[in-house]
């Protein structure tokens, strides 16, 4: 299982790093502009949800000493950023991707090494997706 998961993460990391930025799946051309935008936003939101969900689930997992794998503080920052990000995206706020990119970079930079080892790949995926929108 660990091997499978490691391979999966490797694929994500290689795909993202190979292109420098990940672009979301192209919307079917038959859709109206509004639906194309909704399609794109849905793909981006799935990636942002993934980062939030991993942090929340890791926060619920406890180590032997009873401490969570990812602290409440880091999880809270990620949940708040996720909330802000999807609200800004939904409102089509100008420059939202750059703002979220910067904030996520800051959270990733100050996360303790043990948390970075859990969340790092997901940070990378989200950052490369956001970069593709800037």
């Amino acid at each position, binding site marked *: 299982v660990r091997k499978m*998961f490691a391979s999966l993460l490797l694929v994500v990391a290689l795909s993202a790093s190979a292109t420098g930025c990940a672009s979301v799946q192209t919307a079917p051309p038959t*859709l109206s502009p509004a639906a194309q935008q909704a399609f794109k936003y*849905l793909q981006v939101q799935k990636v942002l949800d*993934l980062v939030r969900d991993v942090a929340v689930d890791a926060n619920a997992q406890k180590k032997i000493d009873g401490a969570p794998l990812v602290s409440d503080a880091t999880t809270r920052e990620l949940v708040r950023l996720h909330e802000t990000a999807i609200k800004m995206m939904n409102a089509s706020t100008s420059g939202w991707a750059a703002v979220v990119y910067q904030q996520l970079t800051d959270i990733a930079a100050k996360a303790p090494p043990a948390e970075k080892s859990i969340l790092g790949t997901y940070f990378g995926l989200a950052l490369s997706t956001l970069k593709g929108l800037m």
Partner: protein
Amino acid sequence: VNAALVSLALQEAPAAISAIKALFGKQNPSEPPPSDEQVIAAYRTAFQSSLDKDEQWLASHPEDVPPAPPAPAVVEEHAAAGDDAGSVE
């Protein structure tokens, strides 16, 4: 820690696969393309349920509020007025 990490990996694998498919997947040409209404409804539902999840987590993990600073001591009027009733003449 390893057991917790494996458990986390198992929990997250379906979501990770779904996100990767969403990013890099191609639509099967035999599938009919989704309609405008379907796409917009799917987005709205996902947006609202995701926001709800954020709010639920934040509500169940309130931030530790530092204790309020002590109220300023009430200065007694006579002291403020320079009343030195306690002094011995």
